[in-house]
Structures are given as C-alpha cells and as structure tokens.
C-alpha cells in the first residue's frame, strides 16, 4: 500500500527537479545560450556551491568522523574503499566500489575480506595512494585522542579490542595485511557479510603517514577526493574547499564534482537556513543544506508558493519512530497490554503531529520501508489509520483491566517532531478512546536519552527512534533485539530486554551471508518474527523535504541518507 505511493513520490520528485533545473536555467542571467535553446537543464562545471548548515564540520579528520556511507561534506574530500551508490534514479542504497576495484572479496565464511585498489589514485599533492595508507588510516582511528568513529572496527577486527593506535603501538594491527601496495586484507573475528557497508565510512580513507600531524591533522587533512581543504575556521564552522587537480573522474564513478569551489557555512539556525534558501539572494541562490529539512510550518508556507514548491526535494532515510515498552515494568510485562496499545494507536493523528503525510509515513513494521532493509510489509495488530479502540478494550479486559488503565508515557521536551510533546499528546488522545489514561512525563533532551538508555532508570512506556549506520537490517535490528547486547552498565539499546535464543542464532546466521539481497530477505522475516512480541509499536518513518537555492541543478537525493548530495549538484 505504501510502496506505490513512495514510488509515485519519487517519480514526482525527479520530474520536479527537471522542471526546476529548466526554470533556473531560464532565469539565470549567465545562461543566454540555454535560454535561446529553450532551457538547457544539463549541469556544467564551475561556480561556487554554498552549503548552509546547522552543525559545523567538527573534527574534520577521517579517523574522528562518524558518517553513514562516507558522509555528505566529508565525501567531497575523503575517498574510501567502498561508497554509497549515487547515480540518479538508482536505488541509492547500494554499496559500490570507490578506491577499490570491487566491493570486496570475502572468504567462504565472510571472516576475511580482500580489496584491490584502482590504478592511478593520487592525493592532492600528486603522491600515490597505497594500501598501507588505508591500513594506517584505520589504525589511527584506534588512538584514544582521535576518538569519534563508529565502534565496529574494534569489535570486528581480530585482536583489535585493546589496540591503542599507531602512536603508542608502532607494530600496527596484525588483522590488516598489505601484501603489496594495491592489496589490503582484513581478518575478522566473526563472519560479517556486511563488511562492504562498513568500508564506506571515513575510517577507510587513506592517510599518508608522513603527513600525519595527530590531533592537528583535522585542520588540513590530505585529500583523496575531488576537493581539498583550503581553509578550516573555528573547528569546521566555516570550511572552504577547492578543486583537487590530482583527482580524476576516470577513477571515480560516483562523484560528479561540478562546482569549482565549495563554501560550507555552519552554526545557523534551521529557520534561518530555510529562510535564506527560499529568498535565494546573492550566493544563497547557489546554496544547499546537508543537515536541515523543512518543518511542518515551513512546508505549509513553501507548498503555498509555486516557485518555492518547485525547489523542494524529497529524501528518505532508513529510520523509524516508535513506542518502546520495558517488559520489566508493570503492566507492560503482560503482552496483552502491549498488544492493546498497539491496536489503540491512531497513526493518522501521530503522522499529523509529526508534520503531516508529506513529512511522515505511517509505519507498522520496525524495519524502514525500503527494499535494502529487507522490508516486508506486515501489520500484526491492525489498528487501521485511526486506531481500533474496541479490540484494545477487549484485550485489556482479558488482561484483567476491565475498567481501563492509567499509565505514564515518557517523552523528550525537544521540538523535534519525533519524541516531542506533540507526538505524546496525539498518543494520549488516541488511547483515551480505548479507556487508557495516559499521563505525560516530559524530560529535557539529554536527561531523556540518558534515562531511556540506562537499564536502572528505563521507563515502562516511552517514545524512541532508531536509524541505522547503513541501509541494512543488521545495524537496525541487532543493537535493539540481540539479547547478548543488553548492557547493564552504560548505554543499553535493547530496551525491550529481548533475549531469545532463536533470534540471536538467526542474527548470527544472517551475518554470515555475503549475498546482501538474500540477507535482506531474512532480516525482513526476522523483523516480522520479533514484531509478534509487541515490544515496540512502530509509529512512522520520517520523510525529509529539502529546500535548495534557485540556481541549483542536478538534484540527487539518495535513499541512503535522504540528503541532497553535494557531490552531484551543479551551480551552472
């Protein structure tokens, strides 16, 4: 039911982008030829792309960045072994080779991965990129002073658990071999069929040992991508990138790199960013944002203006907002109570509270509604669009609550339209019809996230959300439902305390698969199996509306991260 509408939306977004590009060409004073030919929408090289962001490009060191698919701005400077597919019209959730010639060659049980580098790869200073540089780049990320990256490498590489980085231990990691300057082999302590996804992260970018300046490397990291850092002010608040003349499009199928210069300005308020993009004055006409989307009120304003509405791109990102239960807290220990709440939820009012049908899609599955996650549509406790109060009352009666229930819903006070008071109030209103009185407990954002991720303070009934590091079922399901990942001291994400032997075994079995399509199918089936436990009530998958300047063309929004890809856009 949702899939067709999704496709329709995507088609609409593409056609919109074509119309816009044509419109922009017609308006552009410099494109006289284009005007004469009736609208040339083809992108051209040159010009300056401005990126208006909220968050600065802090710690712009490949060892310290925590990215999905190589990041947005980082991907302009750092190439990695593999990267995300960005071809317009393609699914956009697939891993493709970047520095390597393929996405990796596994051994039989996926515990050993071999990559070969392409020929003719160069840094910004013209020196050759070698496999030893990639090994060194990964080793650096283990140094305590260069923390910030994802924890997978430490968990997966053989003998890496206590490694302290190349500054303290010059012998390096034995788990990474470089038999020659173009080959690199990784030895893992367990089967990981999704290793190619991990190899998209910036920790897999080459770092020349001779140029490594430790914690100061972030001021001027050596570029392997189409742009190099010319200026980095205030720890990434303003970043100026210019063309890296040694980068060659022949070795890089994913990055188009049309603009000559990129000016990243951050520390802006989201309303300011959207205001500036809609006004498109001066340099803002060739501006995009890689971390801000339209809020409900902004969408209402933009959609009422044809010119602005044509400048909005739609993005999806594997993400789910849901209600979580702690089955150790009464009455949520009773599955019938959890099921009753699943039936009573009014998803249409929740979607409206999240910004309406253009900004959220109702969810009945925990996995995001994208093929790469292994999405298998299911609705185990059909609530319809507005909730099934009668069925909920019946279940509550069976559970020994014939006169209804009074429960407390914990949420955050941040205005994010995800775990915020608006969503909580919509749920409160819907459950009222089923005889459930909901009291709201709003916590400050930091307090909220500490409270729900600590086994000692975890509330019984709260709003939560989850997004994966890459578009696959593994990083989406394992941290939340693998019983061996319950953390007693520290941040615990298995908030439903599920420790089911058959679930744990299936997670291990899927991790062995190197056929990612086959793995996706099994993740989808596993999601449905876990869904029967009613440990969560999936609410919605957010949709992102991205506004861009009036002279921007070649708009590509991949479903990997749902963001306008700065490596694809052109300003001429």
């Amino acid at each position, binding site marked *: 039911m949702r899939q067709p509408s999704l496709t329709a939306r995507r088609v609409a977004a593409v056609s919109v982008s074509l119309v816009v590009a044509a419109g922009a060409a017609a308006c552009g004073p410099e494109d006289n030829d284009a005007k004469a030919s009736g609208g040339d929408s083809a992108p051209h090289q040159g010009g300056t792309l401005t990126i208006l962001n909220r968050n600065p490009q802090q710690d712009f060191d490949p060892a310290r960045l925590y990215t999905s698919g190589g990041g947005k701005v980082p991907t302009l400077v750092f190439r990695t072994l593999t990267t995300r597919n960005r071809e317009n019209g393609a699914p956009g959730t697939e891993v493709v080779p970047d520095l390597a010639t393929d996405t990796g060659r596994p051994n039989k049980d996926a515990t050993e991965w071999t990559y070969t580098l392409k020929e003719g790869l160069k840094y910004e200073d013209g020196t050759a990129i070698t496999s030893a540089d990639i090994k060194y780049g990964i080793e650096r990320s283990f140094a305590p002073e260069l923390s910030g990256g994802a924890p997978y490498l430490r968990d997966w590489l053989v003998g890496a658990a206590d490694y302290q980085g190349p500054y303290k231990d010059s012998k390096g990691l034995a788990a990474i071999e470089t038999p020659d300057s173009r080959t690199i082999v990784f030895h893992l302590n367990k089967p990981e069929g999704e290793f190619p996804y991990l190899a998209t992260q910036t920790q897999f970018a080459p770092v020349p040992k001779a140029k490594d300046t430790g914690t100061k490397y972030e001021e001027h990291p050596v570029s392997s991508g189409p742009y190099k850092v010319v200026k980095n002010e205030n720890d990434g608040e303003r970043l100026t990138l210019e063309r890296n003349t040694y980068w060659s499009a022949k070795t890089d199928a994913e990055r188009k790199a049309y603009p000559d210069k990129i000016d990243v300005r951050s520390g802006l308020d989201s309303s300011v960013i959207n205001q500036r993009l809609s006004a498109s004055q001066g340099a803002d006409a060739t501006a995009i944002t890689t971390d801000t989307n339209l809020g409900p009120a902004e969408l209402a304003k933009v959609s009422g203006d044809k010119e602005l509405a044509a400048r909005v791109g739609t993005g999806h990102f594997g993400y789910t907002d849901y209600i979580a239960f702690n089955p150790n807290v009464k009455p949520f220990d009773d599955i019938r109570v959890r099921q009753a709440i699943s039936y009573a939820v009014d998803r249409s009012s929740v979607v409206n509270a999240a*910004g309406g049908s253009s900004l959220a899609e109702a969810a009945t599955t925990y996995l995001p509604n994208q093929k790469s996650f292994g999405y298998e549509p299911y609705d185990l406790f059909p609530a319809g669009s507005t909730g099934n109060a009668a069925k909920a009352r019946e279940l509550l009666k069976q559970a020994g609550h014939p006169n209804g229930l009074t429960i407390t819903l914990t949420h955050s006070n941040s205005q994010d339209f995800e775990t915020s008071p608006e969503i909580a109030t919509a749920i409160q*209103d819907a459950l009222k019809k089923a005889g459930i009185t909901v009291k*709201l407990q709003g916590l400050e954002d930091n307090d909220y996230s500490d409270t729900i991720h600590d086994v000692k303070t975890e509330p019984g009934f709260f709003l939560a959300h989850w997004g994966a590091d890459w578009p696959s079922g593994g990083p989406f399901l394992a941290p939340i439902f693998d019983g061996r990942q319950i953390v007693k001291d520290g941040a615990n994400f298995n908030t439903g305390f599920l420790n089911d032997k058959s679930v744990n075994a299936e997670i291990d079995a899927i991790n062995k698969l190197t056929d990612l399509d086959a793995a996706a199918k099994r993740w989808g089936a596993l999601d449905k199996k876990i869904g029967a436990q009613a440990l969560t009530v999936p609410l919605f998958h957010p949709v992102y509306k991205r506004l861009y300047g009036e002279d921007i063309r070649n708009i590509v929004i991949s479903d990997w991260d749902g963001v306008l890809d700065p490596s694809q856009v052109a300003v001429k």
Partner: protein
Amino acid sequence: MSEAVTKAAAEAVIAAQAPGTDPASVPGASGARQFWRRLRAQRAALVAAVVVALLVLVALAAPLLTALEGQDPTTYHPSLIDSARGGVPVGPLGGIGGDHWLGVEPQTGRDLFARLVHGARVSLGVALAATIIQIAIGVTLGIAAALGSRWVDQLLSRITDIFVALPLMIMSLALLAIVPAGFPRPVLVTLVIGLLSWGNIAKVVRAQTLTLKGLDHVSAARLSGWGTWRIARRELLPGLAAPVITYAALLVPQNITVEAALSFLGVGVKPPTPSWGQMLTAADVWYQAAPQYLLLPAGALFVTVLALTVLGDGVRTALDPRAASRLRVGTGRRREHRADTAGEKETSS
C-alpha cells in the same frame, strides 16, 4: 513624643486616627467609596477594569462558552487540516467559521477558541493564586521584620534580600525540572512563582510598617497596653492596605508573563492542558503559514497584561496618599473631603 501622652490622651488619638477617618490611605467603609470615586475618575482605569472583569468572566465561564460553541479544547479534528501541507488548517483565516469561532490549531485541528478560553483559566488562575501567596508571605515577613527585635529584623531582611536577588526564571526552571511528574502542574507553577518572588513586597511592607509604627495612633495603642498582634491587626494592616493592594495589582500581570514564559520554555503546565505560553511555543514557527495561531494567544496575553497594568496604576493613583495629595493640594480640599466622608457616614448609617 508619645511617652508624654497619657493613657486617656492615647485613646483619644486612637479614636481620631481610627480607620475610616484618614481618607488618603485608609480604605474603611467610606474610604472604599472614596477609592471607587477616584478610580472612576480615571477613564483608562475604568476601561481596564471592564476588560479585566470580562477576562475573569470568560475564564470562569470557559466550559460554558465552549459548550455554547459545541467544542472542547482537546478533541482532534484531522479532517480540518491539510495533512499533505504540514497540517495547515483548511479554509480561510485558519478555518474560522460557525463551528470553530477562531479557527483550529495546525497539525491537530483542535479548536482554538476553546483552547484560548481554557488557557485563560490557567494564566489568570495561576497568576492570581501566586499573587495571593506572594502577598501573604510578603506582608507577614514585612510586618514581622518591622515589629520584631533588631535581631529578627536583620535576619528576615537578609532573607528577603536573598529572595529579591534570586533570578526568578532560572530558579523556576531548575525547580520545575526536578519535581516529580506526578505533582499537579498548575499548582506547582503557582507555588514556584508564589514562593520565589515575594521579596519586594516584603520590603515595601516593612518600610511602610516602620513609618506607621512611628505614628501617634500606633504609639498610643502600644501605650494603652495592646499586644503586638492586636496592634498589627487593628492599627497597621489598615494602613498597609493601600501599598499592598497597589503592589498586588502590579504583581498579577507580572505573574501572568512569568507563567507564560515558563510554559513557553516547556516547564509550565503540561499538554493537553492549554495555556497561553504553551500555545505561543507551538505557534511561533507558524507565524507565516497560520498567523492567527500565533496572534490569538499573543493578543490575549498582551490585552490581559496591559489591562491589568493600567488597572494597577489606576488603583495606585486612587490609593496612594502622596499621589492623592499631589492632585488635591491645600487644606480646603482636604476639609471638603472630610465633609464628604462625614456625609457619607451619615447616609450609610
């Protein structure tokens, strides 16, 4: 000087200065008439009084008014909003019509008129209750400091200074964040505002009490053997009424803005209970797409605070003896007033 006065003379002084005889500062039975006469003379204050009366009436009658409209403040109306456009209300002017007199709220479709009038209950209720707490604490501590021993005065005055210096908003935020969720929120907000910001009124009362203490009728009462409590009640409180009522009239609008600010910051009353400050928080991003959503609570807050402030100023003018004497200079006028009050006394008796 009072030491020389005999007991009989003291009684005489008390009789002379008894409540009701000083028209400038004492609102006895006839003083009240005097006060109303002066208040009525100020047109702005009169208009403000009517507005405040209406607001209080609306707040008290909120359930009746919403029943008349056929709506309530919490029901969602998904059919009245355009979900695909971020949840903006369908129809012109935010969906204003016969069913929804002031339109509906974006994203939920809840009735704005119902939310506004129910919000008035929270805003006015919290502000008035907090003012009563502030007055009670301020007057008690002010009088105690003025009448107590030097040691008591020092202690109470320093405590008062601390409360005057407290940054109200920051303290309120901190307190509201740590109190358990189960505590009824409007009561909590009332207590926090009431218990934190009574310092200034205590200072005013202490100063006024010290002045009154030196007056002949108080000295006479003391000489005639009255206890401290009786003196405070019979001789001091009537004299304190003017400054206290004036101060209270100005505290109410101040408390309304504090409540709105706390709700705006997300620590005030909890959803779905509406309050103006909370409506403002939700509405601030909608100022372009649905302007009436922001203008309604902002306008209500503005009118209420303005009316209460003007009324407070009017009350002050009508009660403040110095302002009064500035207006009516000369003994001739004074005698005239006395004649007036005497006449009123006669008619009322």
